[in-house]
């Protein structure tokens, strides 16, 4: 899309773009290029010798059960986070849409998790679920359920999912509410006149019209689950027990900075880059086009 | 105030063989202080022409002069012009005062002089009580006046109006038209006014440029354009209902088109052309008889009390001899 009216200057646009271009060259493209190069190399732990190994790092990666497990974990984690997050927020948004009195209060209250850092969210939920002194853990034990996320992988996964979803509720809720409020009232009234009750109206009118929003949030939530949840994992389980909650981005960090496997970590970075590219392309291609009314 | 000179002005989009030429050589000399209307249907190039005078579009060929200066390569701010836009183009976050003062502020005019000019313009346009408000608080007509005020305070050599009345409702349009006329009488600044409405053109213009598909079809006073249209296009564009253009009427030679306005056809008892009536429109002050003659449509205007013939009857009409126009059937030009 271009404006009809454009300024003409040989040098000004370059001056304006210079800061951004300079920074992205130094801190984006150069490192990304480095990651690419490093992923084809094998380094000893002191970084003194490098040898070119072609796709070896990648082959090792995809044959490494640890990595494949991490992939599965991440996929599982992100689906859970996306689906639960979207469902819960949708429910809240539907009922919020019906309320006129007190809407502002509810909205403000529901917005608060957005202001909580993922790391802090992790700490909060860990406090509540701590096997020895957590309030919720206590209540679960009273109900006969032996909660221990330090030993039980499923519990650990549940913990990070809950913390991650809790954080995302605000964001999803805002978008769903806006989506619902942009549906013309006349459509709903027409359906009501036609005899459709609220439950039916929701499924045949509101839900379909919300599908661009839903799809958009699906992509956003998956990206969030892949990348923005590092802090939650680090604060709560550190990828444990063992490596059972080591999502991909956590593994990159661990392998690169704790285990000092630069080549492997770089290869993992490259794989992540490919995933992000695919997700972003999907987002722009399908979502931006569809949300164009 | 200054004269305006168009010498073979051409506008082209793109380069080389795929270039699209949209204005094909406009030549016109506008006198100092004249109010010129550029009129034509959508897409004829009138706005493009105006924007070339403003400096918002590049001039692909020819020479444009304001006063003695050739201004082809000058920025808008250097041409000493002011413009009133169709959608007002007022800066929404500034007060009306600031909107009018903005151009002067940039030109570093001293503050008391700015105050003086804005107050004076506001007085002429009856906006003095609205100066501290923002544009969104005003009605469409008021906003247009602020836009005009912004143009006036610049005291330019040329005023440019780009369809300023199109966004107003009918009543407001008529009112604002009168205000523009009044303004021109008082300030006497050379003005170019673009519109697609031939009524606006006829009422406002001292002279008008009639444009069609990038060509200047005629440049003359409203009288000239109405009484001696230079082409079939001008003939049918100016005047409502439009002039009848007939190939098959009796007495029309091969290769020519006969033009006669509906108001210049008289209904007779037996002489003249035989017209088969299709329908009659009763318009209060007049009546329009739509009919067919030798397969072509013809419109006849009659007085309010005149007899309204029934459909499918045949009436006879006599054209007034001194009101006939002849056009070349191929070129459309007046002969």
């Amino acid at each position, binding site marked *: 899309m271009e404006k009809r009216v454009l300024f003409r200057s040989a040098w000004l646009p370059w001056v304006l773009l210079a800061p951004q271009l300079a*920074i992205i060259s130094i801190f984006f493209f150069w490192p990304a290029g480095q990651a690419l190069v490093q992923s084809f190399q094998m380094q000893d732990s002191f970084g003194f010798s490098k040898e070119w190994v072609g796709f070896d790092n990648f082959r090792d990666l995809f044959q490494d059960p640890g990595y494949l497990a991490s992939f599965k974990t991440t996929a599982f984690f992100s689906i859970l986070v996306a689906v639960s997050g979207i469902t819960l927020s949708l429910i809240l948004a539907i009922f919020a849409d019906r309320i006129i009195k007190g809407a502002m209060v509810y909205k403000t209250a529901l917005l608060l998790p957005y202001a*909580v850092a993922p790391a802090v969210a992790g700490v909060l939920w860990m406090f509540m679920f701590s096997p020895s002194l957590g309030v919720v853990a206590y209540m679960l034990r009273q109900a006969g359920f032996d909660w221990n996320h330090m030993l039980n992988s499923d519990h650990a996964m549940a913990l990070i999912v809950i913390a991650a979803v809790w954080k995302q509720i605000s964001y999803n809720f805002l978008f769903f509410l806006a989506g619902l409020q942009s549906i013309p009232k006349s459509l709903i009234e027409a359906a009501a006149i036609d005899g459709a009750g609220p439950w039916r109206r929701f499924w045949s009118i509101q839900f379909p019209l919300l599908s661009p929003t839903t799809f958009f949030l699906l992509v956003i939530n998956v990206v969030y689950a892949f990348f923005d949840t590092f802090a939650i994992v680090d604060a709560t389980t550190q990828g444990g027990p063992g490596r059972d909650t080591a999502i991909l981005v956590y593994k990159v960090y661990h392998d690169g900075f704790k285990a000092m496997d630069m080549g492997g970590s770089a290869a993992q970075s490259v794989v992540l880059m490919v995933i992000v590219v695919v997700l972003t392309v999907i987002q722009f291609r399908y979502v931006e086009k569809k949300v164009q009314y | 105030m200054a004269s305006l000179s168009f010498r073979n002005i051409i506008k082209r989009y793109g380069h080389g063989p795929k270039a699209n030429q949209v204005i094909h050589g406009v030549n016109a000399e506008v006198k100092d202080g004249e109010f010129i209307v550029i009129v034509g249907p959508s897409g004829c190039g009138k706005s493009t022409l105006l924007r070339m005078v403003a400096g918002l579009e590049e001039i692909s060929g020819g020479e444009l002069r304001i006063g003695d200066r050739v201004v082809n390569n000058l920025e808008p701010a250097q041409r000493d012009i002011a413009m009133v836009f169709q959608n007002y183009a007022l800066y929404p976050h500034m007060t009306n005062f600031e909107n009018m003062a903005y151009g002067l502020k940039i030109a570093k005019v001293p503050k008391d002089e700015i105050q003086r000019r804005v107050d004076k313009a506001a007085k002429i346009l009856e906006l003095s009580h609205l100066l501290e408000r923002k544009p969104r608080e005003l009605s469409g007509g008021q906003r247009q006046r602020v836009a005009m005020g912004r143009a006036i305070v610049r005291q330019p050599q040329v005023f440019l109006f780009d369809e300023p009345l199109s966004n107003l409702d009918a009543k407001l349009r008529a009112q604002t038209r009168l205000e523009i006329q009044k303004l021109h009488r008082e300030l006497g600044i050379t003005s170019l006014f673009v519109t697609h409405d031939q009524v606006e053109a006829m009422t406002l213009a001292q002279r008008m440029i009639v444009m069609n598909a990038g060509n200047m079809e005629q440049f003359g006073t409203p009288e000239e354009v109405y009484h001696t249209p230079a082409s079939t296009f001008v003939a049918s564009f100016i005047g409502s209902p439009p002039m009848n253009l007939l190939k098959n009427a009796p007495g029309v030679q091969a290769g020519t088109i006969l033009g006669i306005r509906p108001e210049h056809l008289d209904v007779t008892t037996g002489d003249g052309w035989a017209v088969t009536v299709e329908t009659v429109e009763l318009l209060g002050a007049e009546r329009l008889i739509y009919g067919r003659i030798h397969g072509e449509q013809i419109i006849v205007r009659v007085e309010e009390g005149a007899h309204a013939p029934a459909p499918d009857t045949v009436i006879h009409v006599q054209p007034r001899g001194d009101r006939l126009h002849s056009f070349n059937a191929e070129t459309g030009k007046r002969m």
Partner: protein
Amino acid sequence: MVERSPYLTAFSHLIMVLGVIIVGFPLYLAFVASTHTAQDIVQVPMPMVPGSNFWQTYHDALFGGGTGAGSTAPVARMMWVSFVTAIVITVGKIAISLLSAFAIVYFRFPFKGICFWLIFITLMLPVEVRIGPTYQVVSDLGMLNSYAGLTVPLIASATATFLFRQFFLTVPDELVEAARVDGAGPMRFFKDILVPLSRTSIAALFVIQFIYGWNQYLWPLLVTTSEDMYPVVIGIKRMLAGGDAGNEWNIVMATALLAMLPPAVVVVLMQRWFVKGLVDTEK
């Protein structure tokens, strides 16, 4: 809605209240915990109403007087680091993006398309996918353990540029033309007209970027090793020494609440603008 059924309305309120409780419960608990002593909390179940240790806990948190097994660094210093980082990222990003978006939308120049795509691609490179080599660059430039290292690598990604670009495309062409006729050059137009008109987008971005900057975790984790350059979100993690009993949970919770305060204040203050800006422009 359509039916005025009181049952439905009451039910809706019920759901909303439930939602608020679920969402707010961790925060409430954190507050309660921060007002007790560590010993009170370790006794299971911990009390559900606030205690009387408020001032002591917060004092220990802010000024580092605790005796926990984990880090006991003063939170006040960490809050300051977080604050400076967030503000620098926010202001820097907004300024850079305004200029870049302006260049891309309002000028014609060679290689414009390429520049646009270069910036677009950075959307696909969040810091998490390039941590190793970016750390290398920062280290080589001597920017470790500094505000520069914490902020500059995060300051130029494309989200803000795109937001502004979308917005600029909706500004009517006639305003630019009127400004040109009035004699305004490009930078004058930018300063007097475009930026004032962008107020809502700038406000929305301010909130988003402030929170983004404040919440940064992975990057500061790598780039800072000295305690006095830790942002508060790192500090809070370091307070946990694994093994629950050793931690002073009351201080940890106090820190959590302190860490939440500035972003919450920013969100609540700018709520009106923020919600409108976020949804309108993301779409």
